[in-house]
């Protein structure tokens, strides 16, 4: 039995077991509803269009956070790599970056950005951007010196060398940063919506939870789960295609 078959068996088995435990009452319905009921509820919710504005809000905010993290992260990573002194100053700070609980800054972000969508975007961005910076740096550090010599032979300036040699060469590492940025942006934005936002998927889950509305809560949790898995699997497939041509055979 190969790995992908085993994986499908594992997931289907786990869902079936959960279904059974819920149906037989081992897990009471006020704790968790059966997966089939989650799916039905989700289908109804999506068909009714009730939460469409929330879904659009969350996806837009996540999208903005991802795009900003990619652009800013690659730019900062590239600049830092070309300035070893600044990098030596910042490296220890970078190492502790992920030790900072970003949500602790939420009140400050509200003071700065107000009560709209920006605090959520900011948290998603702050969580995501460092992954892009660090992976960009890692990738740029591994560019073989001979390729930079080749760039000089073709008389490429610093900007062209970055865009046409350094970054394309570092692309597999930068891509890893992008994948993490996508994951962190979802975590940041949806997590922030739990706290004080008044719309978005995270807010609706929190609202349903406070109202003992398991139908909506589990439906939306399932929705997020399916969404993130789909996004990550597409990214993974894309990455595999990009890497295939660069792998030695």
């Amino acid at each position, binding site marked *: 039995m190969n790995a992908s078959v085993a994986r499908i068996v594992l997931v289907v088995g786990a869902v079936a077991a959960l279904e059974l435990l819920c149906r037989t009452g081992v897990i009471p319905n006020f704790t968790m509803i059966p997966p089939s009921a989650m799916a039905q509820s989700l289908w109804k919710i999506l068909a009714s269009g009730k939460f469409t504005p929330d879904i659009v809000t969350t996806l837009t905010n996540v999208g903005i956070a991802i795009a900003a993290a990619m652009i800013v992260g690659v730019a900062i990573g590239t600049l830092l790599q070309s300035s070893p002194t600044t990098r030596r100053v910042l490296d220890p700070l970078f190492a502790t970056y992920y030790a900072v609980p970003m949500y602790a800054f939420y009140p400050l972000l509200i003071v700065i950005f107000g009560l709209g969508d920006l605090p959520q975007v900011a948290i998603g961005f702050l969580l995501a951007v460092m992954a892009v910076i660090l992976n960009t740096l890692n990738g740029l550090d591994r560019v*073989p010196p001979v390729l930079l*010599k*080749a760039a000089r*032979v073709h*008389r490429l300036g610093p900007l062209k060398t970055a865009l046409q040699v350094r970054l394309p*060469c570092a*692309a597999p590492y930068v891509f890893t940063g992008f994948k993490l940025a996508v994951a962190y942006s979802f975590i940041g934005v949806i997590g922030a919506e739990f706290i004080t936002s008044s719309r978005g998927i995270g807010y609706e889950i929190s609202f349903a939870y406070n109202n003992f509305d398991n139908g909506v809560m589990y439906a939306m949790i399932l929705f997020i789960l399916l969404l993130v898995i789909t996004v990550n699997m597409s990214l993974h497939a894309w990455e595999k295609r990009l890497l295939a*041509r660069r792998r030695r*055979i």
Partner: protein
Amino acid sequence: MIVSLRAVSRVYPARAGQPEVHALGPIDLELAQGEFFAVVGPSGCGKSTLLDVMAGLASPSCGEVHFEGKQVKGVVPPGIGVVFQEDASFPWLTVHDNIAFGLRQTGAAEGEVAAQVAYAVEFMGLKDFARAYPAQLSGGMRQRVCIARTLVLKPRLILLDEPFGALDQQTRLLMGDELLRLWRETGATILLITHALDEATMLADRVGVMSARPGRFLDIIPTGWPRERDSTIVASESFGRLTGRIWTLLRGESIRALGRA
């Protein structure tokens, strides 16, 4: 004279815990238009430094380098092509796009680029691999891609830094034949750096034999081969004599270099 070096030397300044290193020179050298010049020397003698200085990839600490009458300083002048020992093909580009890389930098029209690349691909025997990526090619093929990328720019001076160093002996001899063909057809001047004495003897019009560090020319030996030649000359009597003469010059230097390493 297409290239002239006058009293060129290169000193790497002292750095944390490392004393100053006198890597090269002083060297005087003149290359005639269209000649094939090979440089051999013990490892670490500054051969690659010599190439870097000639290409404008490194500045000489003393002395001057002139290419076509203009001083070379800090920038690689148009008209000079360089092929390195390490694989310098761009792994994210197809063979076609790799070869087109330099041409596109010059702003050549896409039709012109396609025509030039098609010629180079044909010339270097890469025709069936134009759409392949370097990762799908052997080391020898990737080195051909790099040579083709240089070739399409029609350089008047081609500098090669141990381009076949990573290849097996038979492939090297065949690549030598291709290099000779390229040299004859383009009329370019070639400077080849190598550690293989037979390669130098077989390919070059003149062989410059370098001393251990700091690298200087011990002697420059003309081979006297006709322009029309190929790797079969390794069987000739004078080939053995020439190679032997170079080795006699180099032997003591190589022992010196070995002792220091």
